[in-house]
């Protein structure tokens, strides 16, 4: 056949070289994408995740063992961040508390993102009456503040992480669903969806194999930015004493218990927990901003 294949230029080298890139090169490229502040924030998050993962190994003391002889000491050589009213090592409690502080919000975001995305795709794809029903239900959910939802589920399930996670997951779902729905509506109107229809694809297949991959960067960016909110919300509920129950702890609960000792002249616990929450949320926000920029560039 006398067909000249048109040159495709330098892009040809792309996938072939990409496959063999060493880990360091990947890290370097990610760093370039995130920028300076993004890299610092991402590094901070990585450290937090590592600390949470190896918490029992890292923590210098048993975080739940009371030591009344050393109750309420300020920062010192043995107890770097001092001890609380029961003589428990504050640093160890912060380290071990990072686990629940991390896992709670991640669970909330995972559940609400999955549920919200599913609802959004259903509404955007089916359109018409289905879309109307889903959207009105979401509107009703919007009317209720997240914390109130958590209070209700905690009242039903009893204080503790499960009730909080269920409540906040429900509360976060409409936010995810609304954003994803509008993006999915836009995406659904694009010609390639028509083209997929013409090849006889089913609705489910179009949603999962065509809409979802195109929306993925946006959903990711949205999930990470909501993660910051979830951290604050869970900390607030723990602060109210409705979240994780002693002797287990998270940073929100430590702010609360730290306030009592702060009034007696030992502010380290409350300060350290509050600073960590703030740093965590700030890092998430910076990373999510970078991700959003990336998702925007992909459009």
């Amino acid at each position, binding site marked *: *056949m006398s*067909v*000249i*294949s*048109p*040159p*495709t230029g330098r*892009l*040809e080298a*792309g*996938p*072939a070289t990409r496959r063999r890139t060493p880990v360091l090169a990947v890290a370097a490229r990610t760093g370039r994408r995130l920028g300076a502040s993004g890299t610092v924030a991402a590094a901070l998050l990585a450290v937090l995740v590592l600390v949470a993962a190896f918490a029992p190994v890292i923590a210098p003391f048993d975080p739940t063992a009371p030591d009344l002889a050393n109750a309420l000491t300020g920062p010192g050589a043995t107890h770097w961040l001092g001890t609380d009213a029961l003589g428990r090592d504050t640093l160890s409690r912060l380290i071990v508390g990072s686990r629940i502080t991390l896992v709670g919000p991640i669970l909330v975001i995972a559940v609400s993102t999955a549920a919200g995305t599913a609802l959004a795709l259903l509404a955007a794809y089916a*359109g018409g009456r289905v879309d109307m029903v889903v959207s009105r239900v979401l509107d009703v959910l919007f009317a209720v503040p997240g914390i109130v939802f958590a209070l209700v589920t905690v009242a039903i399930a009893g204080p503790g992480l499960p009730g909080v996670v269920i409540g906040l997951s429900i509360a976060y779902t409409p936010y995810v669903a609304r954003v994803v729905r509008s993006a999915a509506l836009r995406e659904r109107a*694009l*010609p*390639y969806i*028509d*083209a*997929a*229809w*013409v*090849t*006889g*694809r*089913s609705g489910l*297949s179009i949603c999962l*194999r*065509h809409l979802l*991959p*195109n929306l*993925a960067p946006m959903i990711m960016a949205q999930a990470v930015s909501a993660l910051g909110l979830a951290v604050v919300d869970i900390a607030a509920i723990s602060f109210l004493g409705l979240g994780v129950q002693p002797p287990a702890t998270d940073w929100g609960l430590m702010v609360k218990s730290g306030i009592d000792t702060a009034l007696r002249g030992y502010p380290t616990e409350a300060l350290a927990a509050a600073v960590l929450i703030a740093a965590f949320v700030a890092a998430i926000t910076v990373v999510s901003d970078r991700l959003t920029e990336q998702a925007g560039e992909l459009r």
Partner: protein
Amino acid sequence: MNDHLVDVKGLCIDAPVGRLVDDVSFHIDSGEALGVVGESGSGKSLTARALIALTADGLRVSGSVRVAGHDVPGLRGRALRQFRGRSVGMIFQDPRAHINPVRSIGDFLVEPLVLERRQRPDAARRRVLAILDEVGVSDGARRLRQYPHELSGGLLQRVMIASVLAAEPALILADEPTTALDVTSQADVMAILTEQRRERGLALLFITHDLELAAATCDRTAVMYAGRLVETADSTGLQERPGHPYTSGLMVSRPSIDLRATRLPVVPGRPVAAFEAGPGCAFAPRCPHAQTACERERPEARESGGTMVACHRAAELAGSLPTTIEEVSVHG
């Protein structure tokens, strides 16, 4: 008569603003190529889309559309999906917009075979590679790993053709498949499409602005104006003896290699939509041969010797309508 592969009778498509396609009837036999020519908004794409029930939600389709034994407007759910997946393939104008940008070429080509035809992934892959080779895409294995943005428009359109061929349909709908491409890839893509179609004995509905391209690649050519078919004829016959003044007007406004012209002849006025047309012939206000009857009464499509012309004066004008710029410029 039901032995035509495509049999459209009295197809009308209505939008809230009014009628867009008005009483269109045509047929395509197995292995036959029909070119549909018309200006933008003349309803050619809508007509093609009606053949696979891909008209937008707000549009009402009436009339009979039979394709490969299926009553298309009546198809729903699984039956519609199977009909779309197996009986008809569609090639779109802009391949870049019609292939999912975040999925690889391999996914685009192999997935339908695996999902729809229940082929094993490796068998489907081999088949796709063979077809890619046939449509002139070199280095198929690497192409399958690439993404749409890494391929040129011409290459992507070949991938689109390959995807249609892989589904082994009886009919291909090609909606201006070369309009988005540059001239050289246009020629390549048309050559491949024609060659593969002939080899496989597939029927083709080819939609284009380009009267000559349609006549060169199709067995028969239909001309649409304002949502109506004004003329359907054997392609060579149409080229030599246009039966409708509009067809002749299109042909006369083509530039000529031999004649130096400062201005090309034009068809005066602007094209109208079906719902803007008066009670008579939609082309009458722009037609140099219009008489009072043309304004009042809508011309019926009359068939003679395989040629269908919808014009009141078809019989008088037959053979006298100009076909080239030279014929009109001589006394101009």
